[in-house]
């Protein structure tokens, strides 16, 4: 699971008011090189919840991202490279996504999050 995906997943447990962002627990992750595409990064930036991305990247030990970011930083090659790495090159293989309100854990196995709810959670 890339952090780009983490940035769009939320808890849909019944009764939860704000299920985003899910807290990331990562026991295993890998880094895979991805072609750098500045245009893509600039176009996706407005859709990214930066605090969620920052938090997730900290969890996997990537501390190079600034705590906050604005569009002017997209001019900087250095910033773009860090954004690229955090968003696309870190793959969480094993771990969990945790609902911020209920603590419900959605497991991540072999890189695939399982977001299915049980009958009583719907």
């Amino acid at each position, binding site marked *: 699971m890339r952090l780009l995906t983490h940035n769009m997943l939320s808890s849909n447990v019944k009764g939860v008011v704000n299920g985003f962002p899910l807290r990331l627990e990562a026991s295993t992750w890998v880094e895979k090189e991805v072609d750098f595409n500045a245009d893509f990064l600039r176009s996706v930036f407005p859709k990214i919840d930066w605090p969620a991305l920052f938090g997730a990247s900290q969890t996997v030990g990537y501390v190079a991202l600034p705590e906050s970011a604005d569009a002017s930083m997209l001019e900087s090659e250095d910033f773009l490279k860090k954004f690229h790495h955090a968003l696309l090159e870190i*793959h969480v293989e094993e771990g969990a996504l945790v609902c911020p309100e209920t603590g419900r854990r959605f497991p991540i196995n072999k890189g695939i999050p399982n*977001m*299915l709810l049980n009958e009583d959670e719907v």
Partner: protein
Amino acid sequence: MDPLMRCGLSPFIGLYEAPHVPGGYVMLPGMRAQLAGAVQVVRDREELKKGIADLYDESSKMWEGLWGEHMHHGFYDPGLPGSVAHHRRAQLRMIEETLSFAGVTEDSSKWPKRVVDVGCGIGGSSRYLAKKYGAQCQGITLSPVQAQRAQALAVAEGLADKVSFQVADALDQPFPDGHFDLVWSMESGEHMPDKNKFVSELTRVAAPGATIIIVTWCHRDLSQSEDSLKPDEITLLNKICNAYYLPEWCSPSDYVKIAESLSLKDIKTADWSDNVAPFWPAVIQSAFTWKGFISLLRSGWKSIKGALVMPLMIEGYNKKLIKFTIITCRKPE
């Protein structure tokens, strides 16, 4: 001509209705096999979801081995059968005809950037759309085996930076409102037990102006004087539902009404039944190759039951009961 004769099978195997037998089938010659279990459509939600997940966990590998990465019908010019290679091309054509019908633009500056593939199988459509549009594609499926395989294929094709797969429920998608500019459901709608909720979720995750595409199996529209399908039609559909873990079917008009109730725009629908006619006979023939037979035995009972019911799909199409339907629309700006 009965459907088994049409696909050249009835010298070898007879699948006969036997109402006195629980499950309603007797298989001849040479052996009697009784398909266990009463013919029952209404499974509860959890049982249905588990059944769907198990069916695809069990059968996806076999399907991929015989038919490849796309788990949907091919689109053919009426009247033309063909070889297996032809069928694979037809499956790609199905995607292209669907995009064309939906009016997805050819202008690359306006191509969709974020796609959701609802009921993604092993990710064939997701990878195709990611390659075609350079889009980010999210696929969801109930089957963990399918999600893993979809991801593995994405990695193998160098698309792991563009496509992602999750195990998730189409009726409860884990995505924020308005996130996707193309919402894609290719032959998964027939599994959805609540069509209203299904289309509502597709609408919720669609961005303003996004295109929503549903390609699915429906039953024929009812005439003005009808309250329901005829009893023999219902019996036929129930048998299919039992084997494929389908909830109750609806008609194309039902989908149109739901779309209208959600204020969706530019609602279009078409009956592509004539364009998919060669598909089921071809699938049946592939099951009767040595490879197909062994794969079925390896896959398990759910897959075998699904295979045995294939002639009923042909019967349903021939009786103009089953309609292969496309419904497209747009979320208002």
